[in-house]
């Protein structure tokens, strides 16, 4: 294979990996600054490369759209991962994050991280995927989400609203006080 096309394939791989969704040729060409014709050739070469035994990914090509996905033979893998992830009991770290969200939600990620002292991106996403936590955009700040316990969670632990959590008042006030005492610097 030509050097040039190898280079383009590597760029397409990185781009589609990150993008996740189906992407059309035109957009790929524009993002990479490469003519659409060359993109098409490279995608077709990339697709045959992915057929190799040591590759776990494949391309779904639909008219002018292309998406990088796992090979169909790994269809059950996602289910296995989720089972593995979900069967695990909540770690103390997960429980701590969940408690913060339940007792002081709606609360932003920055605020949760301020309380925990640790980056919480992964933990929050994990709790969201399990359906324990919901998020919604903050009406006051752009690009900020507020996290709170999901209705399913409340039902599961047998209460109908967050205010019914044991000692809700005390903890909620404790956290509110924290924001008052430590104004943003």
């Amino acid at each position, binding site marked *: 294979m030509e050097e040039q096309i190898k280079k383009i394939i590597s760029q397409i791989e990185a781009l589609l*990996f*990150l993008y*996740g969704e189906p992407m059309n040729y035109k957009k790929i060409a524009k993002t990479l600054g490469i003519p659409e014709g060359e993109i098409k050739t490279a995608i077709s070469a990339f697709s045959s490369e992915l057929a190799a035994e040591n590759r776990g990914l494949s391309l779904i090509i639909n008219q002018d759209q292309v998406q990088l996905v796992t090979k169909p033979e790994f269809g059950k893998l*996602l289910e296995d*991962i*989720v089972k593995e*992830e*979900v069967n*695990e*009991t*909540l770690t*103390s770290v997960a*429980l*701590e994050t*969940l*408690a*913060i969200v*339940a*007792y002081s939600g709606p609360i*932003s990620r*920055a*605020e949760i991280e*301020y*309380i*925990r*002292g640790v980056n919480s991106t*992964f933990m929050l*996403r*994990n709790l969201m*995927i*399990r*359906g*324990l936590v919901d998020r919604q955009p903050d009406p006051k700040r752009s690009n900020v989400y507020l996290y709170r316990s*999901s209705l*399913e*969670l409340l039902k*599961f*632990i*047998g*209460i109908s609203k967050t205010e019914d*959590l*044991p*000692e809700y008042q005390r*903890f909620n006030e*404790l*956290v509110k006080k*924290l*924001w008052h*005492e*430590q104004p*943003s*610097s």
Partner: protein
Amino acid sequence: MNYTIKTELFSGPLEKLLELIEEKKMEITAMNLAEVTGDFLNYLKNIQEKTEPGILADFVVVASKLILIKSKALLPNLELTKDEETEIKDLEARLTIYNEFRIAAQHIKELAEKGARSYSKPLLAALEKQRVFYPPQELKLSDLSRAALNLADLLKKIVPEPQKIKSAIITIEQKIEELLQRFQTAAEHSFKEVTMSRPKTEIVIFFLAILHLLKDRIIDIEQKGQFEDILIKRGEQPTQ
């Protein structure tokens, strides 16, 4: 909300010390450290009012070591304990390492600025659009409230520790006060006399106090010869 911590903006005592040494284009040796002791103490004095006690304390720790070095340079017959000798060696070694790590920090800075970053996919991106509920079967209300109890401890930890270290600063001020009072009654003191039978750490603080007062011309000092006692005299300006 922006939770950037203010302490980030301050340069630490070792950084300052290195700056002073570099200004004079000197190497990191005990002799040269004695040389910049005065400058370091001046700097400490200047930032004293604007700086948090916690940060000041870090400076005072280094200052006390510098004064030890300076004392030895001024009073060669001053006997140092093994610990103190180690402390001096230690400061040299730490400065050298610290200096090296400025290069390491530069490496990281250059890598970060190059923008050659790797990116990854979010956790289980394929599940993003599904709405599912996978509760851990054993999760109970009491688990949450127990975690909330621990949360209360966490919240306490966030508030900065009470300023224990402030005592170190107060001590210097106390010593200054003590010296000033002595000058109310007599015009001249011998360093040896004043510091006699005091623990060495206190002598060091005394020395720091003397240098403070010297800077403000509240006192003058006189040393007849290299191995002689230091005479502390009331300065030309009124003491209060």
